[in-house]
């Protein structure tokens, strides 16, 4: 025991008297395995792109010198309990200055309190549930929030599709799905529509035929499925096989190439709200899409674009703060005005939620096609 302590002493001394950081460490918590591993993969790609871009220019400018940036990516498996562990590891073990993540709202809600308590700023790229940032000073996000998204879809359904009746099928065990489903129900009703079915299931359920048959009985014009891309195609497929003819609508949880890979033709003619569209006319987006395509051979989805924006938001805040200090980075983040990202301009007006627009995307012949843009 004594030998061990002695052996550890120089190490302790070393870490105690390290005055200047040779690199800036930023944590990333993303679901690289598990049911939505495709989203984690997008995150991983976008992070690799940001890291190489910034370090190719010598790193981020902190005060008067350039410091290299290292992103430490950990897998949270899209499980809240794993996200909590990942946040703890990144903060306590890796001593990161800030965190990008997590992705689904349920994971961010598990990780955020830990970061908040430790005073580590977090930018979540993809968590749209309002509670993620509510009452927290250190938690930010790069995406819009569910009330806005629910309103966008409800408005699209009533004004563009002229829908009179609507139904919802959602995962009741997931914060994101539940939040957006409830907002859609309220907004759709407010806009003069009638909700004729409001059905639930639990994460990992694969048989939706009972709920869908019940919905079919009320014959709605639109069916809103605010669920993730790994389930939606199966829900639509089962719905069609049960004779449901409603127009299918969704939210940004649909946005992944897997959606069409899994669903094929059954996805054609469906719509979903999203953070950005690859067809968008924005020079920053165009540059990002070209780089991403040439390196990974894929069109980036919104999770990739938002990850890119989140990481750059943090890097910009580090440069603005001028020092490698979490509190200063948090203050710089909160003061962000007009940050130009791939997914639009980001300004934080006193909360961690940015003010930004949404797009509606139509699935046509297996491709995501820009349909319309909606601004708050």
């Amino acid at each position, binding site marked *: 025991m004594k030998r061990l302590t002695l052996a550890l002493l120089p190490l302790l001394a070393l870490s105690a008297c390290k005055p200047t950081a040779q690199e800036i460490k930023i944590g990333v918590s993303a679901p690289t*395995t*598990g*049911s939505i*591993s*495709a989203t984690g993969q997008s995150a991983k790609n976008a992070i690799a792109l940001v890291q190489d871009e910034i370090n190719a220019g010598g790193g981020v400018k902190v005060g008067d010198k350039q410091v290299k940036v290292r992103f430490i990516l950990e897998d949270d498996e899209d499980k809240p309990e794993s996200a909590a562990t990942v946040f703890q590891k990144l903060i306590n073990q890796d001593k990161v200055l800030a965190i990008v993540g997590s992705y689904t709202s349920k994971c961010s809600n598990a990780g955020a309190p830990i970061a908040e308590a430790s005073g580590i700023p977090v930018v979540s790229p993809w968590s749209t549930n309002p509670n993620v940032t509510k009452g927290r000073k250190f938690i930010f996000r790069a995406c819009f929030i569910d009330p806005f998204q629910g309103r966008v879809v409800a408005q699209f359904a009533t004004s563009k599709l002229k829908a009179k009746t609507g139904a919802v099928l959602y995962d*009741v065990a997931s914060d994101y799905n539940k939040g957006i489903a409830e907002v859609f129900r309220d907004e759709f009703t407010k806009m003069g529509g009638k909700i004729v079915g409001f*059905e*639930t*299931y*639990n994460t*990992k359920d*694969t*048989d939706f*035929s*009972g*709920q869908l*048959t*019940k919905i*079919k*009985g009320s014959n709605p014009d639109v069916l809103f499925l605010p669920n993730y891309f*790994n*389930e939606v*195609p*199966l829900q639509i*497929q*089962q719905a069609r*096989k*049960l*004779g449901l003819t409603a127009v299918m609508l969704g939210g940004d949880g649909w946005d992944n190439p*897997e959606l069409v890979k*899994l669903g094929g033709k059954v996805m054609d003619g469906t719509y979903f709200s999203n953070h950005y569209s690859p067809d968008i006319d924005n020079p920053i987006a165009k540059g990002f899409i070209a780089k991403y395509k040439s390196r990974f051979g894929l069109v980036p989805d919104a999770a990739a674009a938002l990850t890119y924006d989140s990481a750059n938001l943090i890097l910009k805040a580090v440069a603005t703060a001028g020092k490698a200090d979490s509190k200063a980075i948090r203050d710089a983040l909160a003061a962000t005005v007009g940050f130009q990202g791939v997914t639009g301009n980001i300004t934080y007006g006193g909360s961690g939620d940015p003010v930004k627009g949404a797009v509606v995307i139509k699935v046509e012949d297996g491709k995501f096609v820009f349909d319309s843009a909606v601004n708050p």
Partner: protein
Amino acid sequence: MDTIIQQLFNAAQLGAVYALIALGYSMVYGIIRLINFAHGDIFMLGGFIGLLLTTRFGWMPFFLLLPLAMLLTALVGVTIERVAYRRLRNAQRMSVVITTLGVGIFLENFVRLTVGPETRQIPARLPSAKVVWLQQHLGAFVTWDKLLIILISLALMAILWLVVNRTLIGTAMRAVADNKDAVPLMGVNLNLVIAVTFAIGSALAAAGGIFYGQAYSIDPYMGIDLGWKAFIAAVIGGIGSIEGAVLGSFLLAGVEVITVAYLSSNLKNGIAFGLLILLLLVWPWGIMGKPTLKKV
């Protein structure tokens, strides 16, 4: 009104898959008093073998694909019994149960690493047009694949019933279930009987996996939840009883679907399992189970 019949078809399809899994649990338990917790993962593996065959051999018609996948999965089942369970046959009960859990975890991770964690669907090999007759006469919108899945499952169960009750090996299986220690003295090869039981159970689970992958979807972890459901169905019906496993499965699926249809999808599992607990209070050995007295 027309949706009631449609809901019954939904329940029948789900119940058929539960039954194909539950039979394996029940048969193995009936013969060697072992609850094989890896069985749900055998079901998952069967689904993935079906996926592999349909994607690699696109030309293969369904009536060839199904038996081939069942055969391959049966081989896996027999191998697992030979490698992992046989030498523990006389060990403490707990050691074997833990081993079955270990085998299950191995299978899940093996598939996750080799195929990937994504949700997949087995490309449709059954016609998905609607059954016009059912819509005209009963007002129910049912597709052919759903009807065929129910009918083929029932046919497989009928074949099983014939094998167990009308063949020599079936007689041997029933004899082993009756008294495992006395049967070898009568010149019956116990190892063979047990291997055949695992083969049949795994083959049925594979059929369930393939149907599930066509009707719903498959992923490496699906065996956990569905395995539990099927296990519970087997217990409800009376574990060890073939008829009981089938009955329990259709009952469980029926209660689930009816809860969703007429009460609330929120309460599905709560009400379904609440009812089942009540049922077990009335019939502690399951509906068709035989009360066994413990010898002291």
